[in-house]
């Protein structure tokens, strides 16, 4: 169906994209859902002609005739499988007129975090609400990481808050969605290793961004400056030394222009925050990506005690994992798993894969897995004899 037949553009823009186009919300005429569009490039030839943002070096390195850029394919491949209550779902996917771009329509509900904080200055500082939102944010990020992906662009414009209406004072009900639009945002919420142009990036970059958002929720304004991003990071967290950021990057060259700072006590900047919160924040805003807390660990942090039991909704992933666990992993674990790793570990990692299973492949996959297990157990038996 044609895009214009299906969707109606809404008046209010939600921001400016990186390529300086305004981004609008669209209303799905049939389902009544609101979406926001993101464009990614489909024809590589066009890149040479377009003055897009981004580093020009990487573009020149690529040979012509690559067809659909690998980056585009990976993005589509990822967004197609994402399915989590805290991640905006992909509602529409289609070609731009002229086939130059792919249009991705992400679900857009409520308002973004920045607007939420502006409109509800007092309510948004409520510790209980912050805790609930942080838990949802981290579960979303943990899901991203569990499918071997990283979001890479977590910032307040990509965090949507909904279901917070005036009459609804129950903080547990407020919902958070992570989306991924290329909106301009100041200051950046990027991790120091990105700003230092390290070439060894990991999923830890998302955790630093989550830390920035956490800090912003706590004090009501961005933690770091717009102008001198790295400088302000170092001012709060201390200048990295060979010990604190070992193996990430050759520091001496890049750090010359920054003043030396020693790390500050976070509880002086974030006054009135409970100690567990400060502890989580310091772990999220850890300079060294290798020592930064992981999303799944952060969810188990003591800051979230109490919220956990209520908020933990059984996701389709967990349900599917349980199913697979009962049918096939069970015997597998009993056969082999007398030592360290129990069945729960196997189920956790399976959850990542199973969540993505759509429709029929699920059955075939589990059948295959089962037959493979038979094979392995046969091998085990023969080796014992």
């Amino acid at each position, binding site marked *: 169906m044609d895009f214009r037949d299906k969707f109606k553009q809404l008046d209010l823009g939600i921001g400016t994209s990186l390529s300086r186009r305004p981004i609008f919300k669209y209303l799905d005429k049939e389902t009544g859902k609101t979406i926001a569009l993101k464009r990614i490039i*489909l024809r590589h030839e066009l890149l040479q002609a377009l003055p897009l943002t981004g580093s020009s070096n990487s573009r020149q390195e690529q*040979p012509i*005739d*690559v*067809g*659909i850029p*690998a980056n585009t*394919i*990976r993005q*589509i*491949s*990822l967004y*197609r*499988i994402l399915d989590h209550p805290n991640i905006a779902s992909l509602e529409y*996917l289609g*070609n731009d007129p002229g*086939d130059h771009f*792919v249009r991705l329509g992400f679900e857009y509900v409520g308002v973004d975090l920045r607007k939420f904080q502006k409109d509800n200055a007092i309510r948004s500082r409520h510790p209980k609400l912050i805790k609930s939102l942080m838990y949802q944010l981290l579960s979303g990020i943990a899901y991203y990481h569990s*499918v*071997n992906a990283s979001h890479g662009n977590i910032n307040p414009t990509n965090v949507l808050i909904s279901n917070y209406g005036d009459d609804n004072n129950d903080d547990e009900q407020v919902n958070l969605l992570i989306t991924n639009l290329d909106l301009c945002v100041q200051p950046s919420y990027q991790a120091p290793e990105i700003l230092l142009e390290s070439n060894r990036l990991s999923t830890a970059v998302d955790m630093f961004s989550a830390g920035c958002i956490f800090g912003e929720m706590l004090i009501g304004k961005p933690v770091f400056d717009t102008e001198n991003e790295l400088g302000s990071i170092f001012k709060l967290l201390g200048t990295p030394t060979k010990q604190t950021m070992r193996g990430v990057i050759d520091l001496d060259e890049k750090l010359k222009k920054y003043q030396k700072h020693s790390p500050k006590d976070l509880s002086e900047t974030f006054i009135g925050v409970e100690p567990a919160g400060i502890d989580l924040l310091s772990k999220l805003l850890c300079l060294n990506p290798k020592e930064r807390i992981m999303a799944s660990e952060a969810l188990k942090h003591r800051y979230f005690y109490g919220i956990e039991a209520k908020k933990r909704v059984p996701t389709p992933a967990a349900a599917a994992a349980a199913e697979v666990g009962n049918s096939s992993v069970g015997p*597998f674990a009993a056969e*082999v*798993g*007398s*030592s*360290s*790793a129990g069945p729960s*570990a*196997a189920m956790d*990692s*399976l959850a*990542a*894969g199973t*969540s*993505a*299973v*759509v429709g*029929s*492949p*699920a059955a*075939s*996959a*589990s059948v*295959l*897995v089962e037959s*493979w*297990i038979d094979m*392995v157990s046969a*091998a*085990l038996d023969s*080796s014992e004899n």
Partner: protein
Amino acid sequence: RTNIDQETPIDTWYWHKDLYGFYTRKREMWKERALALRPCLLEFLIESAQLLEVSPIVKYTALSFFADRFYPRFSSSRFKEGGDIANWLLQPLRESNLQLFALVSLWISSKIHSSRPLSINCFKSLGDKVIKEQHFTNRDFLEAEVVLMQVLNFEIGAVDIAFTFLEELLHQLREVAKIGDLVNFEA
């Protein structure tokens, strides 16, 4: 082990269908024809993957795209003449065209999984060698890629491939039991 040459020629199918009076049902036949070609096309894909020396995950993802997602769509109405994906690459449906799509699905899957995806020239030169009936240019490959994506409706999620489950299980087996070292993927 069947060879591509030993497969039943398409004409046999026409004749067979005519006997039972199905000859006029063009779409049905179209589907039949595609199904008849399926085994040798899958073999073609696997052999190409071996010639290109791609990693197993690339091969199995391509198989999943081609066999599990691309092929079943032949029955969909979007393929009928005048449908929205009535591309010349899919009409008429010949073995060579489908071979092109097999190569393209390998290409897409290598873009997903390899940090340095294979270049179009690898596929072009392989295509020149192994696709005998027809000659495809670089531009045809580029076009086929977009067509394949449209046919798949961009459903190219690559986490639900059975291979990833097996790999994960093998990984865990290696952690818990010594026998895991002896098991190897002859993929």
